[in-house]
Protein backbone atom coordinates (compact mmCIF):
# COMPACT_ATOMS: atom_id res chain seq x y z
CA UNK A 1 0.00 0.00 0.00
CA UNK A 2 1.28 3.43 -0.92
CA UNK A 3 1.80 5.75 1.97
CA UNK A 4 0.49 9.25 1.43
CA UNK A 5 3.51 11.58 1.32
CA UNK A 6 3.21 15.21 2.23
CA UNK A 7 5.02 17.49 -0.25
CA UNK A 8 7.77 19.55 1.41
CA UNK A 9 8.61 22.71 -0.53
CA UNK A 10 11.68 24.90 -0.28
CA UNK A 11 11.47 28.67 -0.31
CA UNK A 12 14.64 30.72 0.28
CA UNK A 13 16.27 29.24 3.38
CA UNK A 14 13.08 27.65 4.64
CA UNK A 15 10.98 24.58 4.08
CA UNK A 16 7.19 24.67 3.95
CA UNK A 17 4.73 21.82 4.29
CA UNK A 18 0.96 21.90 4.54
CA UNK A 19 -0.91 19.02 6.13
CA UNK A 20 -4.32 18.58 4.49
CA UNK A 21 -5.65 15.41 6.14
CA UNK A 22 -5.32 13.95 9.61
CA UNK A 23 -2.05 12.00 9.88
CA UNK A 24 -2.03 8.39 10.94
CA UNK A 25 0.85 6.23 12.09
CA UNK A 26 2.54 5.30 8.85
CA UNK A 27 2.03 8.65 7.14
CA UNK A 28 3.29 10.47 10.24
CA UNK A 29 6.48 8.39 10.40
CA UNK A 30 7.00 8.89 6.67
CA UNK A 31 6.51 12.64 7.10
CA UNK A 32 9.05 12.78 9.93
CA UNK A 33 11.62 10.86 7.89
CA UNK A 34 11.04 12.95 4.75
CA UNK A 35 11.27 16.22 6.62
CA UNK A 36 14.47 15.43 8.52
CA UNK A 37 16.05 14.15 5.32
CA UNK A 38 15.08 17.35 3.48
CA UNK A 39 16.46 19.53 6.28
CA UNK A 40 19.70 17.58 6.07
CA UNK A 41 19.88 17.88 2.27
CA UNK A 42 18.92 21.54 1.97
CA UNK A 43 20.52 22.81 5.17
CA UNK A 44 17.31 24.73 5.77
CA UNK A 45 17.34 27.19 8.69
CA UNK A 46 13.65 26.92 9.39
CA UNK A 47 10.44 25.06 8.67
CA UNK A 48 6.83 26.23 8.51
CA UNK A 49 4.14 23.63 9.15
CA UNK A 50 0.76 24.91 7.94
CA UNK A 51 -2.36 23.36 9.49
CA UNK A 52 -4.97 25.69 7.95
CA UNK A 53 -6.85 22.80 6.35
CA UNK A 54 -7.02 20.74 9.53
CA UNK A 55 -10.32 20.86 11.44
CA UNK A 56 -9.46 18.35 14.14
CA UNK A 57 -6.14 17.87 15.88
CA UNK A 58 -6.04 14.98 18.32
CA UNK A 59 -3.38 14.32 20.95
CA UNK A 60 -1.50 11.95 18.60
CA UNK A 61 -1.22 14.61 15.95
CA UNK A 62 -0.21 17.24 18.54
CA UNK A 63 2.52 14.85 19.75
CA UNK A 64 3.83 14.35 16.21
CA UNK A 65 4.00 18.10 15.64
CA UNK A 66 5.85 18.68 18.93
CA UNK A 67 8.25 15.79 18.18
CA UNK A 68 8.98 17.03 14.68
CA UNK A 69 9.69 20.51 16.06
CA UNK A 70 12.11 19.14 18.62
CA UNK A 71 13.91 16.89 16.13
CA UNK A 72 14.20 19.68 13.57
CA UNK A 73 15.56 21.91 16.35
CA UNK A 74 18.29 19.38 17.03
CA UNK A 75 19.27 19.68 13.39
CA UNK A 76 19.39 23.46 13.57
CA UNK A 77 16.05 24.31 11.96
CA UNK A 78 13.44 26.35 13.82
CA UNK A 79 9.82 25.26 13.41
CA UNK A 80 6.75 27.51 13.29
CA UNK A 81 3.24 26.06 13.18
CA UNK A 82 0.72 28.26 11.36
CA UNK A 83 -2.96 28.41 10.53
CA UNK A 84 -4.42 26.72 13.60
CA UNK A 85 -8.20 27.16 13.49
CA UNK A 86 -9.77 28.80 16.57
CA UNK A 87 -11.78 25.65 17.23
CA UNK A 88 -8.61 23.57 17.01
CA UNK A 89 -6.82 25.90 19.42
CA UNK A 90 -9.71 25.61 21.89
CA UNK A 91 -9.79 21.82 21.71
CA UNK A 92 -6.01 21.59 22.14
CA UNK A 93 -6.22 23.74 25.27
CA UNK A 94 -9.21 21.75 26.56
CA UNK A 95 -7.31 18.50 25.97
CA UNK A 96 -4.30 19.92 27.75
CA UNK A 97 -1.99 19.24 24.79
CA UNK A 98 -0.51 22.56 23.89
CA UNK A 99 2.49 21.46 21.83
CA UNK A 100 4.92 22.87 24.36
CA UNK A 101 7.96 24.51 22.85
CA UNK A 102 6.36 24.99 19.45
CA UNK A 103 6.21 28.52 18.09
CA UNK A 104 2.90 29.42 16.46
CA UNK A 105 1.77 32.14 14.07
CA UNK A 106 -1.55 33.20 12.58
CA UNK A 107 -0.92 32.27 8.95
CA UNK A 108 1.83 31.32 6.51
CA UNK A 109 2.76 34.95 5.83
CA UNK A 110 3.21 35.68 9.54
CA UNK A 111 4.93 32.32 10.01
CA UNK A 112 7.68 33.16 7.51
CA UNK A 113 8.20 36.53 9.20
CA UNK A 114 8.41 34.97 12.65
CA UNK A 115 10.88 32.42 11.30
CA UNK A 116 13.09 35.14 9.81
CA UNK A 117 13.10 36.94 13.15
CA UNK A 118 13.97 33.76 15.05
CA UNK A 119 16.78 32.92 12.65
CA UNK A 120 18.07 36.51 12.73
CA UNK A 121 18.11 36.62 16.54
CA UNK A 122 19.95 33.30 16.63
CA UNK A 123 22.51 34.63 14.18
CA UNK A 124 22.90 37.72 16.36
CA UNK A 125 23.45 35.58 19.42
CA UNK A 126 26.02 33.51 17.55
CA UNK A 127 27.88 36.69 16.54
CA UNK A 128 27.75 38.11 20.05
Amino acid at each position, binding site marked *: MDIYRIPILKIEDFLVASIQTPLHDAAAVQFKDDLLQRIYETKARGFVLDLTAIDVVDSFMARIVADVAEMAGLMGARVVVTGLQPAV*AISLVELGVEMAGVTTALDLDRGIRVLRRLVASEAERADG
Partner: protein
Amino acid sequence: MTTEKSSASTQELERQLEALQRIAGVFGAMQKGQDIYDQINRQVVELLGVEKCAVLLYDQDRQCLVGQAPAVGVPNEDIRSYVIPLAGDSPAKQFWDMGQSFVVKDIDTDPVVQALGLADFAHKVGVKSTMLVGIRLEGQLIGVIQPSNRRDGMPFDETDVRLLTIYASQAAVAIENQRLYQAITAERDRLARVLETVQELSTPVVPVLEGILILPLIGFIDSDRAQRVMEGLLSGIVQYRAQVVILDVTGVPVVDTGVADHLVRAARAAGLLGAQPILVGIRPEVAQTIVGLGVHLHEIATRGDLRDGLEYALAVLHRKIVTADGQRVGR
Protein backbone atom coordinates in the same frame (compact mmCIF):
# COMPACT_ATOMS: atom_id res chain seq x y z
CA MET B 1 -103.38 20.44 19.64
CA THR B 2 -101.84 20.22 23.09
CA THR B 3 -99.79 17.19 22.05
CA GLU B 4 -98.57 19.03 18.97
CA LYS B 5 -97.61 22.02 21.04
CA SER B 6 -95.75 19.99 23.67
CA SER B 7 -93.98 18.00 20.97
CA ALA B 8 -92.84 21.26 19.39
CA SER B 9 -91.57 22.60 22.68
CA THR B 10 -89.80 19.30 23.37
CA GLN B 11 -88.07 19.62 20.03
CA GLU B 12 -87.10 23.16 20.86
CA LEU B 13 -85.69 22.08 24.22
CA GLU B 14 -83.73 19.31 22.58
CA ARG B 15 -82.28 21.79 20.09
CA GLN B 16 -81.20 24.05 22.97
CA LEU B 17 -79.74 21.19 24.96
CA GLU B 18 -77.77 20.00 21.98
CA ALA B 19 -76.48 23.52 21.39
CA LEU B 20 -75.42 23.77 25.05
CA GLN B 21 -73.55 20.51 24.78
CA ARG B 22 -71.80 21.78 21.71
CA ILE B 23 -70.84 25.00 23.48
CA ALA B 24 -69.30 22.97 26.28
CA GLY B 25 -67.40 20.92 23.73
CA VAL B 26 -66.11 23.57 21.37
CA PHE B 27 -63.81 25.39 23.78
CA GLY B 28 -61.90 22.24 24.47
CA ALA B 29 -61.25 22.10 20.76
CA MET B 30 -59.85 25.66 20.55
CA GLN B 31 -56.46 25.61 18.95
CA LYS B 32 -53.79 27.92 20.26
CA GLY B 33 -52.00 28.66 17.01
CA GLN B 34 -55.11 29.59 15.04
CA ASP B 35 -56.84 32.93 15.05
CA ILE B 36 -59.19 33.17 18.01
CA TYR B 37 -61.83 35.33 16.26
CA ASP B 38 -61.95 33.05 13.27
CA GLN B 39 -62.57 30.07 15.57
CA ILE B 40 -65.27 31.88 17.56
CA ASN B 41 -67.05 33.05 14.41
CA ARG B 42 -67.03 29.62 12.85
CA GLN B 43 -68.40 28.05 16.01
CA VAL B 44 -71.24 30.60 16.24
CA VAL B 45 -72.11 30.06 12.57
CA GLU B 46 -72.36 26.36 13.36
CA LEU B 47 -74.25 26.72 16.65
CA LEU B 48 -76.92 29.17 15.56
CA GLY B 49 -77.17 28.23 11.91
CA VAL B 50 -76.35 31.71 10.58
CA GLU B 51 -74.65 33.00 7.43
CA LYS B 52 -72.31 35.57 8.93
CA CYS B 53 -70.62 36.29 12.22
CA ALA B 54 -68.15 38.85 13.52
CA VAL B 55 -66.51 39.83 16.82
CA LEU B 56 -66.24 43.50 17.81
CA LEU B 57 -64.03 44.68 20.66
CA TYR B 58 -64.45 47.83 22.72
CA ASP B 59 -61.85 50.50 22.07
CA GLN B 60 -61.44 52.52 25.28
CA ASP B 61 -59.72 55.51 23.64
CA ARG B 62 -62.09 55.97 20.72
CA GLN B 63 -65.19 54.93 22.72
CA CYS B 64 -66.50 52.63 20.06
CA LEU B 65 -66.79 48.98 19.08
CA VAL B 66 -64.34 47.96 16.37
CA GLY B 67 -64.75 44.98 14.06
CA GLN B 68 -62.02 42.33 14.33
CA ALA B 69 -60.71 40.51 11.29
CA PRO B 70 -61.26 37.84 10.18
CA ALA B 71 -65.07 37.53 10.23
CA VAL B 72 -67.16 34.86 8.58
CA GLY B 73 -69.11 36.08 5.54
CA VAL B 74 -67.60 39.59 5.58
CA PRO B 75 -64.37 40.54 3.75
CA ASN B 76 -61.45 41.58 5.98
CA GLU B 77 -61.23 45.17 4.71
CA ASP B 78 -64.95 45.68 5.35
CA ILE B 79 -64.88 44.26 8.86
CA ARG B 80 -61.88 46.43 9.76
CA SER B 81 -63.81 49.54 8.75
CA TYR B 82 -66.86 48.47 10.79
CA VAL B 83 -67.23 50.79 13.80
CA ILE B 84 -70.19 51.27 16.17
CA PRO B 85 -69.80 54.56 18.06
CA LEU B 86 -70.63 54.47 21.78
CA ALA B 87 -69.85 58.06 22.70
CA GLY B 88 -72.28 60.24 24.67
CA ASP B 89 -75.05 60.85 22.10
CA SER B 90 -74.85 57.51 20.29
CA PRO B 91 -78.18 55.64 20.08
CA ALA B 92 -76.29 52.39 20.74
CA LYS B 93 -74.89 53.69 24.04
CA GLN B 94 -77.90 52.78 26.18
CA PHE B 95 -77.79 49.16 25.06
CA TRP B 96 -74.07 49.03 25.84
CA ASP B 97 -74.45 50.73 29.22
CA MET B 98 -77.32 48.47 30.23
CA GLY B 99 -75.39 45.47 28.97
CA GLN B 100 -78.44 44.44 26.95
CA SER B 101 -78.36 42.25 23.94
CA PHE B 102 -79.68 43.95 20.83
CA VAL B 103 -81.76 42.22 18.16
CA VAL B 104 -82.44 43.72 14.73
CA LYS B 105 -85.27 41.92 12.95
CA ASP B 106 -85.01 43.96 9.77
CA ILE B 107 -82.16 46.34 8.96
CA ASP B 108 -84.35 48.58 6.78
CA THR B 109 -86.90 49.38 9.46
CA ASP B 110 -84.81 49.39 12.63
CA PRO B 111 -84.65 52.93 14.08
CA VAL B 112 -81.32 52.43 15.91
CA VAL B 113 -79.54 51.12 12.82
CA GLN B 114 -80.91 54.03 10.79
CA ALA B 115 -79.89 56.51 13.49
CA LEU B 116 -76.34 55.08 13.59
CA GLY B 117 -76.17 55.36 9.78
CA LEU B 118 -75.08 51.74 9.50
CA ALA B 119 -77.84 50.67 7.08
CA ASP B 120 -75.62 51.31 4.04
CA PHE B 121 -72.79 49.25 5.51
CA ALA B 122 -75.26 46.45 6.31
CA HIS B 123 -76.50 46.45 2.72
CA LYS B 124 -72.97 46.47 1.40
CA VAL B 125 -72.00 43.30 3.30
CA GLY B 126 -75.44 41.73 2.77
CA VAL B 127 -76.78 41.76 6.35
CA LYS B 128 -80.61 41.49 6.56
CA SER B 129 -81.22 40.67 10.22
CA THR B 130 -78.70 40.59 13.05
CA MET B 131 -78.16 40.59 16.80
CA LEU B 132 -75.43 41.68 19.18
CA VAL B 133 -74.60 39.99 22.47
CA GLY B 134 -72.02 41.32 24.91
CA ILE B 135 -68.80 39.52 25.75
CA ARG B 136 -68.36 39.93 29.49
CA LEU B 137 -65.11 39.34 31.32
CA GLU B 138 -65.18 39.60 35.13
CA GLY B 139 -68.34 41.72 34.94
CA GLN B 140 -66.80 44.09 32.42
CA LEU B 141 -68.04 44.27 28.83
CA ILE B 142 -65.09 43.91 26.47
CA GLY B 143 -66.92 43.56 23.16
CA VAL B 144 -69.77 41.88 21.32
CA ILE B 145 -70.42 38.88 19.13
CA GLN B 146 -72.61 39.71 16.16
CA PRO B 147 -74.13 36.89 14.08
CA SER B 148 -76.28 37.86 11.08
CA ASN B 149 -78.88 36.26 8.76
CA ARG B 150 -80.29 33.00 10.09
CA ARG B 151 -80.10 30.42 7.34
CA ASP B 152 -83.81 29.60 7.72
CA GLY B 153 -84.63 33.28 7.05
CA MET B 154 -86.32 33.73 10.46
CA PRO B 155 -85.49 36.69 12.72
CA PHE B 156 -83.36 36.01 15.83
CA ASP B 157 -85.41 34.94 18.85
CA GLU B 158 -85.03 34.64 22.62
CA THR B 159 -83.43 31.20 22.34
CA ASP B 160 -80.72 32.52 20.05
CA VAL B 161 -79.99 35.33 22.49
CA ARG B 162 -79.79 32.94 25.45
CA LEU B 163 -77.52 30.48 23.65
CA LEU B 164 -75.23 33.20 22.38
CA THR B 165 -75.05 34.77 25.86
CA ILE B 166 -73.84 31.46 27.29
CA TYR B 167 -71.43 31.06 24.41
CA ALA B 168 -70.14 34.64 24.84
CA SER B 169 -69.24 34.07 28.49
CA GLN B 170 -67.06 31.16 27.41
CA ALA B 171 -65.62 33.09 24.48
CA ALA B 172 -64.60 35.89 26.86
CA VAL B 173 -62.25 33.51 28.68
CA ALA B 174 -60.81 32.27 25.40
CA ILE B 175 -60.23 35.84 24.19
CA GLU B 176 -58.58 36.80 27.45
CA ASN B 177 -56.36 33.72 27.32
CA GLN B 178 -55.37 34.66 23.81
CA ARG B 179 -54.55 38.21 24.91
CA LEU B 180 -52.46 36.94 27.84
CA TYR B 181 -50.76 34.41 25.59
CA GLN B 182 -49.85 37.12 23.08
CA ALA B 183 -48.64 39.44 25.84
CA ILE B 184 -46.44 36.69 27.28
CA THR B 185 -45.11 35.72 23.86
CA ALA B 186 -44.25 39.35 23.11
CA GLU B 187 -42.55 39.69 26.50
CA ARG B 188 -40.60 36.50 25.96
CA ASP B 189 -39.40 37.68 22.55
CA ARG B 190 -38.36 41.00 24.07
CA LEU B 191 -36.39 39.24 26.80
CA ALA B 192 -34.72 37.01 24.23
CA ARG B 193 -33.59 40.12 22.33
CA VAL B 194 -32.33 41.73 25.55
CA LEU B 195 -30.42 38.57 26.41
CA GLU B 196 -28.87 38.54 22.95
CA THR B 197 -27.75 42.14 23.38
CA VAL B 198 -26.30 41.39 26.79
CA GLN B 199 -24.37 38.46 25.37
CA GLU B 200 -23.00 40.63 22.58
CA LEU B 201 -22.06 43.33 25.04
CA SER B 202 -20.45 40.82 27.37
CA THR B 203 -17.73 39.83 24.89
CA PRO B 204 -16.52 42.98 23.17
CA VAL B 205 -13.31 42.76 21.18
CA VAL B 206 -11.72 46.14 20.53
CA PRO B 207 -9.07 46.45 17.83
CA VAL B 208 -7.30 49.44 19.35
CA LEU B 209 -4.13 49.70 17.26
CA GLU B 210 -2.88 47.64 14.35
CA GLY B 211 -2.07 44.20 15.68
CA ILE B 212 -3.38 44.92 19.19
CA LEU B 213 -6.74 43.75 20.56
CA ILE B 214 -8.27 44.73 23.87
CA LEU B 215 -10.86 42.56 25.62
CA PRO B 216 -12.44 44.57 28.42
CA LEU B 217 -14.16 42.04 30.67
CA ILE B 218 -16.87 43.41 32.93
CA GLY B 219 -19.06 41.54 35.39
CA PHE B 220 -19.21 37.98 36.59
CA ILE B 221 -17.67 35.31 34.41
CA ASP B 222 -19.24 31.87 34.41
CA SER B 223 -18.19 28.97 32.23
CA ASP B 224 -20.76 29.83 29.53
CA ARG B 225 -19.47 33.35 29.30
CA ALA B 226 -15.86 32.22 29.51
CA GLN B 227 -16.50 30.00 26.50
CA ARG B 228 -17.94 32.93 24.55
CA VAL B 229 -15.04 35.14 25.62
CA MET B 230 -12.60 32.57 24.30
CA GLU B 231 -14.46 32.18 21.01
CA GLY B 232 -14.78 35.96 20.63
CA LEU B 233 -11.10 36.40 21.42
CA LEU B 234 -9.92 33.78 18.92
CA SER B 235 -12.16 34.91 16.09
CA GLY B 236 -11.07 38.50 16.86
CA ILE B 237 -7.41 37.45 16.53
CA VAL B 238 -8.10 35.87 13.13
CA GLN B 239 -10.30 38.75 11.95
CA TYR B 240 -7.95 41.59 12.94
CA ARG B 241 -4.72 39.59 12.49
CA ALA B 242 -3.77 40.53 16.03
CA GLN B 243 -0.32 39.82 17.44
CA VAL B 244 -1.00 40.96 20.99
CA VAL B 245 -4.24 40.63 22.97
CA ILE B 246 -4.83 42.51 26.21
CA LEU B 247 -7.31 40.91 28.62
CA ASP B 248 -8.55 43.65 30.93
CA VAL B 249 -10.12 42.20 34.09
CA THR B 250 -10.54 45.53 35.90
CA GLY B 251 -14.32 45.06 35.82
CA VAL B 252 -14.36 41.46 36.97
CA PRO B 253 -15.45 41.48 40.62
CA VAL B 254 -14.58 37.91 41.55
CA VAL B 255 -11.74 35.77 40.24
CA ASP B 256 -11.95 32.24 41.59
CA THR B 257 -10.14 29.10 40.42
CA GLY B 258 -12.72 28.63 37.68
CA VAL B 259 -12.30 32.12 36.25
CA ALA B 260 -8.50 31.97 36.56
CA ASP B 261 -8.51 28.63 34.79
CA HIS B 262 -10.66 30.07 31.99
CA LEU B 263 -8.30 33.03 31.65
CA VAL B 264 -5.28 30.75 31.41
CA ARG B 265 -6.99 28.61 28.77
CA ALA B 266 -8.04 31.64 26.73
CA ALA B 267 -4.47 32.93 26.93
CA ARG B 268 -3.01 29.59 25.82
CA ALA B 269 -5.45 29.28 22.93
CA ALA B 270 -4.57 32.83 21.84
CA GLY B 271 -0.91 31.79 21.97
CA LEU B 272 -1.60 28.86 19.63
CA LEU B 273 -2.89 31.36 17.07
CA GLY B 274 0.37 33.23 17.36
CA ALA B 275 -0.90 36.11 19.49
CA GLN B 276 0.73 37.06 22.78
CA PRO B 277 -1.73 37.44 25.68
CA ILE B 278 -1.33 40.17 28.31
CA LEU B 279 -3.42 40.25 31.48
CA VAL B 280 -4.08 43.67 33.00
CA GLY B 281 -6.19 45.22 35.74
CA ILE B 282 -5.74 42.67 38.50
CA ARG B 283 -6.92 44.44 41.65
CA PRO B 284 -5.30 43.82 45.07
CA GLU B 285 -8.03 41.54 46.39
CA VAL B 286 -8.05 39.60 43.12
CA ALA B 287 -4.26 39.19 43.30
CA GLN B 288 -4.66 37.86 46.85
CA THR B 289 -7.33 35.40 45.76
CA ILE B 290 -5.26 34.15 42.85
CA VAL B 291 -2.17 33.55 44.96
CA GLY B 292 -4.24 32.20 47.84
CA LEU B 293 -5.89 29.70 45.51
CA GLY B 294 -2.52 28.53 44.26
CA VAL B 295 -3.33 29.38 40.64
CA HIS B 296 -0.24 30.08 38.59
CA LEU B 297 -0.44 32.71 35.89
CA HIS B 298 3.29 32.62 35.14
CA GLU B 299 2.85 31.86 31.48
CA ILE B 300 0.84 35.02 30.92
CA ALA B 301 2.46 38.44 30.97
CA THR B 302 0.69 40.66 33.50
CA ARG B 303 0.70 44.43 33.86
CA GLY B 304 -0.93 46.68 36.43
CA ASP B 305 -3.33 48.62 34.29
CA LEU B 306 -4.47 48.99 30.72
CA ARG B 307 -2.00 51.79 30.04
CA ASP B 308 0.99 49.71 31.04
CA GLY B 309 -0.43 46.79 29.15
CA LEU B 310 -0.69 48.88 26.01
CA GLU B 311 2.87 50.12 26.34
CA TYR B 312 4.07 46.57 26.84
CA ALA B 313 2.09 45.49 23.78
CA LEU B 314 3.75 48.22 21.72
CA ALA B 315 7.15 47.10 23.00
CA VAL B 316 6.39 43.55 21.88
CA LEU B 317 5.61 44.92 18.42
CA HIS B 318 8.80 47.07 18.46
CA ARG B 319 6.75 50.21 18.38
CA LYS B 320 6.36 53.16 20.70
CA ILE B 321 4.25 56.26 20.97
CA VAL B 322 6.19 59.46 20.31
CA THR B 323 5.21 63.10 19.97
CA ALA B 324 5.23 64.69 16.55
CA ASP B 325 8.86 65.85 17.03
CA GLY B 326 10.00 62.41 18.10
CA GLN B 327 9.94 62.87 21.90
CA ARG B 328 9.11 59.78 23.86
CA VAL B 329 5.69 59.74 25.51
CA GLY B 330 4.99 57.77 28.64
CA ARG B 331 6.30 57.10 32.09
